[in-house]
């Protein structure tokens, strides 16, 4: 975890400093009422101090369990994340129905061991149920994309 904690501390210290930099440019206090920058600066100071503490602790403690982020199990997660971003774009530009069917079919194929017919059926059924419930019962408009 040592390396993980150091990265974690680094990321959040940077974020805190970034927010402080932006908050400094906001208008100042008026008539004793703190301005819009006061609160974000206060909270980022807390965040910075906590992040530095985590960083120092990471240095001083002996390393126990290493943080693994590169095993095949993790690579699978990263690919899934990427595919979901593609799905989001597909949903927006192509259309909800087709993108969803393809997404479900793809993931079920990848994760499971079923016949192609079962996979297609599942993907179709889930898409149909979710679409019907949200569009017809909950009246949520899925109007995007060039196709359906």
């Amino acid at each position: 975890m040592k390396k993980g904690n150091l990265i974690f501390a680094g990321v959040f210290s940077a974020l805190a400093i970034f927010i402080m930099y932006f908050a400094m440019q906001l208008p100042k206090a008026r008539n004793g009422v703190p301005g819009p920058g006061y609160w974000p600066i206060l909270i980022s100071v807390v965040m910075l101090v906590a992040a530095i503490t985590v960083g120092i602790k990471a240095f001083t403690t002996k390393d126990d369990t290493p943080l693994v982020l590169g095993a095949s199990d993790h690579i699978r997660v990263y690919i899934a994340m990427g595919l979901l971003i593609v799905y989001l774009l597909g949903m927006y530009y192509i259309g909800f129905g087709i993108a969803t069917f393809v997404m479900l079919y793809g993931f079920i194929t990848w994760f499971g061991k079923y016949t192609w017919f079962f996979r297609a059926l599942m993907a179709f059924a889930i898409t149909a149920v979710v679409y019907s419930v949200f569009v017809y019962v909950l009246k949520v408009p899925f109007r995007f994309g060039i196709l359906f």
Partner: protein
Amino acid sequence: MKKMFVVCMVLAVVAGTLFAGGATETAGATYPNGPATIICPYSAGGGSDSVSRALAAAMKVDFPAGIAVENRTGGAGSVGMSYGMHSKPNGQIITMVAPELVMLPHTGTGGDIDYKKFIPLAIVNSGYAAITVSADSPYKTLEDLLVAAKTKDLQFGNSGIGSIWHLAGAGLEQAAGVEFTHVPFDGSSAAITSLLGNHLDGVSVSYAEVASQVEAGALRTLAVLAPNRLSDYPDVPTAGELGYDVVIGTWRGYCVPVGTPQATVDFLTASIMKAVKTDTFIKFMKNTNNDIEVIGTAAFAEKLQREDEFYAKLIEKIGLAQ
């Protein structure tokens, strides 16, 4: 693998046509050739939402394929109004607009919304600001309040910074030459609650929102910032009668984007005009404390232009302009 791909594509297409069947426009040249949607830029369950839904229900007779209300909230209404402004000008998307359309651009919080990019149809409802104090407040008339404001620091609650009710308080301030401390809350009801708890000197929200408290004797309305006395409450004077020329209120109007065919605009305007005369709509509006005030296309367009100039000046004066 290839077989799977083919099957998958076929099924997708089948699914597509199956679902799309429900949504495709029934072919035809004359409007309405499909379902219409009213975009309500405020949240479901609120006043704007319920008025829009009641209007949609009353307009249903003219829309065989249905007319629905869709909420797209955010940015004090700018998100929904912008969505409606950028929609296709085919009459399928009708946008509910409020004074925020001509206020937000001046405070720099309106994104890209611009009233000139809308064709106004009609206004159906308006509600004016009411200067309201607690029932046990020492101020019995507007004059008392404004005289006290010259020497004391009066705290006025409103529904949010730069909101219409903030501007109402500020408008009165300008007209009377006094200064209040404006305390912004998240919405009118939070301000009213705070007034009920005697944490404020007054509120400048709409009469409809304080009506039940005034009737119950918990609050007292000193004046309304309306052109005429309110029919529900004729005892309360208007600010104009008392010598302060200030009329500020909210309204709910409906618009379509610029470029919509004239025939469609006429059809929609006629449909709205017909809907506001139905008994169910009138009863609904009465029950929900909303006053019907119908303003037609031409007067609506004029009102937009006039209020745009008015709010530009007011917002500049109170230092909210960006």
